[in-house]
């Protein structure tokens, strides 16, 4: 109870401080450059050139502290030894190239990269197109969107049950094994099957991200001018042709943004792998590998090096994504 009260008070104080900051600085600015008197025009211009910096100031300061500083520090750390004190040059990078664990992570990450964004976007697009045509579409949409509300770890727990295996002669409680057994097959320890287990983990992220893709693409589909669809009907196109040749090309920009947004997420995938396999049985990924070296290997240098690799992979997609999203407007 006391904690709850404390939380409420600190929340109120935080919001209050923000309001006070914006209101106060604005007031002071208007006091220094009053919008009246003989220099009113000049004062308004000056105040307006300063105001954005006042309002953006706190955000810029926080971003610098929590984003830019860590990036620079990571780059520096990647040239240092395990404790971050001894300079080792490019030793971490040459280690990385020859390291089998890193290569496995990179390969798996690329697999994730090809499968998850494609599958999520594809299923999202199909779901968006189909739910727009049926009367209970909104219910279906809510159901498909719901996994978005579940944390990655929570989703992993759910899917651990799906992939669960019990010993011989015990009833299989895992959904997948129950189906396999019911069809007369042998139960499998799904998440320990090398190579294939990657795909079983990917299914979880696809399950989560399809809802995201569906919501964005559904909005885009609704933005298509109805007349272009009617014109295509008059031109004799069937529903599939209208979808593939008229609708999809018109929302191509949105599809690309959804695709790259999920791609960036996939490059950082961590929680699912940690919760499901912790990188065992050949399912390691970069983010989990970095985490491993940071907190288990206790090697800041190598960990930072892996972080740099992830960042370098994300940046170009990020830039393209932002450009594309701006173009859409």
């Amino acid at each position, binding site marked *: 109870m006391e904690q709850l009260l404390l939380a409420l008070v600190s929340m109120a104080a935080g919001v209050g401080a923000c309001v006070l900051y914006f209101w106060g600085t604005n007031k002071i600015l208007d006091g220094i450059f009053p919008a009246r008197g003989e220099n009113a025009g000049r004062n308004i211009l000056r105040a307006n050139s300063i105001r954005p910096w006042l309002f953006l100031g706190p955000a810029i300061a926080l971003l610098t502290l929590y984003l830019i500083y860590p990036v620079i520090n990571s780059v520096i750390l990647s040239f240092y030894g395990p404790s971050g004190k001894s300079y080792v040059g490019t030793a971490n990078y040459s280690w990385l190239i020859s390291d089998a664990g890193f290569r496995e992570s990179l390969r798996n990450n690329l697999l994730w990269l090809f499968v998850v964004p494609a599958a999520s976007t594809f299923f999202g697009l199909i779901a968006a197109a189909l739910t727009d045509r049926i009367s209970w579409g909104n219910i279906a949409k809510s159901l498909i969107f719901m996994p978005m509300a579940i944390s990655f770890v929570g989703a992993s727990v759910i899917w651990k049950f799906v992939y669960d295996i019990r010993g011989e002669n015990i009833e299989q409680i895992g959904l997948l094994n129950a189906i396999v057994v019911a069809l007369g097959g042998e139960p499998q320890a799904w998440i320990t099957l090398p190579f294939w287990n990657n795909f079983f983990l990917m299914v979880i992220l696809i399950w989560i991200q399809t809802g995201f893709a569906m919501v964005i693409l559904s909005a885009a589909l609704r933005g298509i001018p109805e007349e272009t669809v009617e014109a*295509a*009907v*008059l*031109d004799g196109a069937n529903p599939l*042709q209208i979808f593939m040749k008229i609708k999809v090309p*018109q929302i191509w920009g949105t599809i690309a943004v959804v695709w790259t947004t999920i791609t960036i997420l996939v490059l950082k995938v961590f929680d699912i792998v940690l919760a499901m396999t912790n990188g065992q049985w050949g399912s390691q990924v970069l983010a989990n590998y970095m985490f491993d070296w940071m907190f288990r290997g206790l090697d800041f240098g190598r960990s930072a090096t892996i972080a740099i690799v992830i960042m370098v992979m994300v940046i170009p997609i990020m830039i393209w994504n932002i450009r594309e999203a701006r173009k859409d407007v």
Partner: protein
Amino acid sequence: MTSVSLKDVSKSYGSVEVLRNINLDIEKGELVVFVGPSGCGKSTLLRMIAGLETITGGDLQIDGERMNETPPAQRGIAMVFQTYALYPHMSVRDNMAFGMKIAKKPKSEIDAAVDNAARILQLEPYLDRLPKALSGGQRQRVAIGRAIVRDPKVFLFDEPLSNLDAALRVATRIEIAQLKESMPESTMIYVTHDQVEAMTLASRIVVLHGGNIEQVGAPLDLYERPANTFVAQFIGSPAMNMVAAQVTETGASTTVQIRKGAAATVQVPSKPGDQSSLVQLGVRPEDLVLTEGSDFLLEGTVAIVEALGETTVLYFEGKDGEVGLIAKLPGIQSIGKGTKVRLTAAPDKLHLFDAEDVSFHYR
């Protein structure tokens, strides 16, 4: 030969009836304009012919064939939309070729059709451009080109000029008129709310109001002999003046006594039973002329003067809360606000409508 025939066609959304028992025959080669105020059902009727709206009653025939349930693409129609409805991701050429590509026509045939349409509409330099790189007028030409490529029996135009600016609208209107002239065999149905487009383009105008056809006829017929007060006031700008009157003499021509005004003889026949019935006397603003003598029809005080150069429009003060008269006089007139003037009109320019708003000509 009848090209499009509507028999008792009606349309309702649930219990709301938007079109009632529409009967209309459109001859091959005609350009018929559907005109009417917003919400009169003209666009709905066009979309029903196109097959974009279902027909809830009656029959639609195109070239003698019943088309009620035929898919739009097989009705032999092509439509030009108000918003152009070009496929934004396709070049002008692909936009025009799309229908034929879907129909799996040979490439040589498609190219020939597209090139022909592009030549007619002077779109050749733009064939490889995307619609967004075209001006509004060019986009509408592409939309018309897409319709020509389909080689339809019937062209449908849904307010095709509404999205263009005033100057371009006039130019494109003339282009459409020329296009129609170059394709005398094609039937065209054209929806607009703009009576100038209707008057200039139509071989026949269909005036729609509240889901009914009010009158069908050649443009000048509608202007000279409107069937009822709605058509009388809808066609012509400013709208026809209506004044209450009472019949005093019937026969080959009718004499009426304008309430609080003069008597007028109208060259419209009436029956003996019309004697002393209450009627409305209609006179177009442009048919009113100034008069000095005592033989005037109407009298009023000028409230507003609009000097347009080519014409001068006088708005009169309304009596007893009635709508004031409007007179449209040729050229520049030196009449000031507040002047009391007398107006008259030739007997053959006067219209009479009975208590049910129906013209004496059409009873």
